[in-house]
């Protein structure tokens, strides 16, 4: 019998802690496939902070450490100094990276740290049960904005990719989405490029992945993908904001 689909080498056969329809599984797989295809699994070190994906080490078959909320870029900075020839990545959610961890991510980008950040933007705090994130859309109902996010009270959603792209040290910045097979393939290409930028020592690389949170959005998985496409992509445009010419 011909095998048509199997776990990638970088993913461990653990029972998942993620909710049905959550796109963390796809994002995990893409990161591990990208490393595997370049022969980098054995050289990879990951940092996963508080949030649903703090348990990423259950699934990602590379050396990993957990992190306090928002601090992963500082930890990756420390790891990089001791292990200069490794491939280092942080895998961070939006409550983590765009709220409590803005200092760490901006300053790591500013120093041009040679690691890669995978930023999962699902416009909500997932692990704590669906509170408003800095990335929640105006009008989006969450447990801390039950009538919908109000611009007057909470400001406009923050666009981290655009913000980081203004920093010289961030040399590769791209936003992708996991709503369609075509976009999933584009996401993987962006992740591979980000790792290539790191391998070449060009600076900080950043991939923002628009993702779903069916449980806390209150939609089924299919409707969640539609909501992402209809609401998130118009506000968070997909595409590359910055690529160094060495990897173009």
């Amino acid at each position, binding site marked *: 019998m011909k095998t048509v689909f199997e776990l990638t080498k970088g993913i461990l056969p653990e029972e998942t802690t993620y909710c049905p329809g959550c796109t963390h599984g796809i994002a995990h797989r893409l990161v591990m496939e990208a490393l595997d295809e370049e022969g980098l699994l054995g050289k990879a070190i990951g940092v996963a902070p508080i949030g649903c994906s703090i348990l990423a080490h259950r699934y990602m078959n590379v050396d990993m450490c*957990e992190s306090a909320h928002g601090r992963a870029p500082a*930890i990756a*900075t420390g*790891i990089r100094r*001791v292990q200069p020839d*490794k491939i280092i990545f942080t895998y961070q959610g939006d409550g983590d990276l765009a709220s409590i961890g803005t*200092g760490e991510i901006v300053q790591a980008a500013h120093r041009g740290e040679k690691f890669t950040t995978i930023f999962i933007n699902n416009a909500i705090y997932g692990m704590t049960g669906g509170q408003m994130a800095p990335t929640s859309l105006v009008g989006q109902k969450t447990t801390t904005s039950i009538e919908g996010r109000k611009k007057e009270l909470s400001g406009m959603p923050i666009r981290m990719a655009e913000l980081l792209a203004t920093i010289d040290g961030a040399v590769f910045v791209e936003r992708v989405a996991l709503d369609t097979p075509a976009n999933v393939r584009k996401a993987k290409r962006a992740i591979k490029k980000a790792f290539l930028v790191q391998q070449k020592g060009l600076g900080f690389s950043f991939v923002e992945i628009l993702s779903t949170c069916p449980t806390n959005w209150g939609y089924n998985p299919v409707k969640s993908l539609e909501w992402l496409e209809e609401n998130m992509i118009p506000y968070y445009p997909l595409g590359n904001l910055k690529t160094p010419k060495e990897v173009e």
Partner: protein
Amino acid sequence: MSEKVLMKGNEAFAEAAIRSGCRYYFGYPITPQNEITEYMSRELEKVGGSFVQAESEVAAINMAYGAGAAGGKVFISSSSPGIALMQEGFSFICSTEIPLVILNVSRGGPGVGTIQPGQADYYQATRGGGNGDYHLFVYAPSSIQEAVDMMPKAFKIAEEYRNPVMILADGMLGQMMEPVILPEPVPAIKQEDIPKAKPWALTGTNEARPHNVIRSLYLVAEELEARILELDKKYQRARKELVEYEAINLENAEVVFVAYGSTARITEEAIDLLAEAGINAGMIRPISLWPYPYEAFDKIPSSTKAVISVELSRGQMIDDVKIGCCGRFPVSLCSRVGGMLLTPQEIAADAKKVLGVE
């Protein structure tokens, strides 16, 4: 043996850390310890190490966590409010058992307080400001030489126990100059030797071993309880093995002072002043503040009339002094705060008052 040199405390601490094999330092400017950060920025790269000026103390402690997790020998320093910001990291680092040496060149508080010396971080150091059941191992030098001698030992203990060790100095020790003999340099660990020396470290699997995971999240209560009990075994061992103190002139002492750090040096002079006045005074000088040398108090003779905790705080160590005394002696506090120092005369006068002479 290295020759004797005249050095400022902060620079001597930094050089001693490098000579102890430290190659990674992450710092953020704060007075009165800036000479350490500046020294590391100049010197670490010369010996193949790395210095990063962090964006905050919060980032600095997390960089230290990362570098330690990756197997590096790491040193960080700060002063009181900066140490306050690092507490979250201390809790994580204890939980994940990452070796680290921390230096607090403490100053007066609360809040911004002052840049003058203080000892009001005793609770912060020994009780911890981070969450959960954890302990830093805390040592308090009373001279620059003692601090410098502690440095290689602190790294050794941190690595052996896989737990952070804090050296609690104060602004006085950091800012003054004294003749000092620096420790002999220890070679630094090479990156290629880390996997063997620290098989738990994040070095990449090389696809040749199961992945290493450094974690502090245990969602299953039974697992977390087992983990905490495991860590506690280490803390119980530390209580047996790491206690250090100096007992001075306890025999026939009418009054016994308890003092640590630079305050202990001033107190020694007060003992001399009292001797001139015909009063026999002794001192317990805790060198390890956690674990605390409670057993030293058993050496105080029952004829002693009073025990005085001498501190630059409104009474923090006095809690441990009372535990040590077990109600055998009246315990009182002799203190100045806010960056003010005690003079030997003030301490001697306080003892006379407590004893009811003059």
